[in-house]
């Protein structure tokens, strides 16, 4: 496993796709949120009227209310892109043939890809939270009140949830042998989550529960509903590992 981890970490650390996506997730999301703060304090009353409700109740709490909404959508797509690329690039670059007939099993390599992805995702999530705090301070929100700390925790937790609920993209990218298959899966997860929330079934749709839980602090998402994420992610991981184990270069 160590060989797999070293291999995958080396590739990830040098990959332009990963660097660009990291910047987009950390700076993109935090700048979107902080720019809303500036926009509502603008002299333009129409713009302030339009954006004001989005950051209700204002201050740090409103700022993080926006952050969790943006993270729920943009974060999932961003993590899905990197995960899809990690698995599909071996097919696109033709390097998959070199991953056969070696003493490291493909199942181990796939597991290493997932571990490296989760680690990178957790670092990115922490960096995003830090960027949000720094930009909030720079925007003049002042000292962070104690009642905002739970919001910050929800924002970080939602990032972590987004990282794990993107895992079906790894399986799709493997089966489809294409980065587009993985990204499309991440987008389908996002869209179906939105639909499930609109139809009122979101609490029981594992891909929607993290965002529901994080965004609507007043809405009761039960621990049972949240726990449904675990078997879904476990199934996605198991299917991915099995697909890599059984892989054949037959197309």
């Amino acid at each position, binding site marked *: 496993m160590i*060989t797999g981890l070293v*291999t995958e970490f080396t590739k990830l650390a*040098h990959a332009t796709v990963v660097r660009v996506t990291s910047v987009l997730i950390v700076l993109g999301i935090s700048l979107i949120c902080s720019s809303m703060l500036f926009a509502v304090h603008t002299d333009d009353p129409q713009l302030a009227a339009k954006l004001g409700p989005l950051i209700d109740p204002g201050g740090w709490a409103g700022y993080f209310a926006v952050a969790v909404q943006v993270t729920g959508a943009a974060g999932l797509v961003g993590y899905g892109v990197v995960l899809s690329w990690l698995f599909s690039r071996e097919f696109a670059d*033709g*390097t998959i*043939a070199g991953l056969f007939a*070696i*003493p490291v099993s493909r199942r181990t390599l796939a597991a290493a890809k997932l571990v490296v992805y989760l680690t990178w995702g957790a670092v990115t999530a922490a960096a995003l939270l830090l960027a949000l705090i720094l930009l909030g301070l720079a925007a003049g929100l002042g000292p962070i009140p104690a009642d905002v700390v739970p919001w910050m925790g929800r924002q970080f937790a939602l990032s972590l949830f987004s990282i794990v609920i993107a895992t079906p993209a790894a399986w799709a990218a493997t089966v489809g042998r294409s980065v587009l298959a993985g990204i499309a899966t991440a987008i389908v997860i996002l869209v179906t989550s939105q639909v499930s929330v609109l139809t009122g079934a979101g609490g029981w749709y594992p891909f929607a529960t993290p965002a529901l839980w994080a965004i609507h602090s007043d809405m009761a998402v039960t621990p049972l509903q949240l726990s449904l994420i675990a078997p879904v992610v476990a199934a996605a991981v198991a299917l991915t590992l099995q697909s890599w184990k059984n892989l054949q*270069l*037959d197309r």
Partner: protein
Amino acid sequence: MADAVDARGLVRTFDDGTGVRGVDIRVAPGEIHALVGLNGAGKSTLMRLLLGMLKPDRGTVAIAGRSLEGADWTTVGHLVDYPLAYGELTCRQNLALGARLHGVAPAAIEGIVDAAIEELHLGQYAGRRAGKLSLGNKQRLGLASALQHSPRFIVLDEPTNTLDPAGVILLREALLRRSDTGAGVFVSSHHLDEVARVADRISVLNAGRIIGTLDPHGIDIERSFFELVHSDDVTA
């Protein structure tokens, strides 16, 4: 000593009618065995079957006397389809990664990589990212990665593709050095190139079947090759 590879009765066909149909192939230790055949003859399919990249419909493969499930893959080096070269990594980083994946101990990697860079004359490109290399130099990198860990069984699918004449000679010499030390080499080509010409044995594959052998030291072996293939096509 067991054969580097011993495959018997291999069958794997595809929906479009291509594939291999009952192929027996042996490569002895210290032997260079060339496989020649026209495009679509089934060379790549056969090589993939030998390396576990495809599962046969029928037949068996043993590497150094062990089934593919129990094979010691640290003793195998291959380049099939594309080089194991990641565009974002330098030549040196790619070689280190390849050595690690082939089971080389971390402490030995640097020395092995240096030797591989020297053998395939990659010195001036050692610090260059693989994505910036020409196709020929990328192929050299892939060959270096396949050969650097001193494998006992080497499988190369059309390795001279994209190589310049100097690269072909480097490859030929590298294979001869390894066969001299007991490695079995199985190398394919769609024509009788410089590598096929140094083989100890040349098998001809046509329409998924071994249809005969050629004398590597014979006169006008290209003519013999085309006569074999033509005769088989007429018979079929």
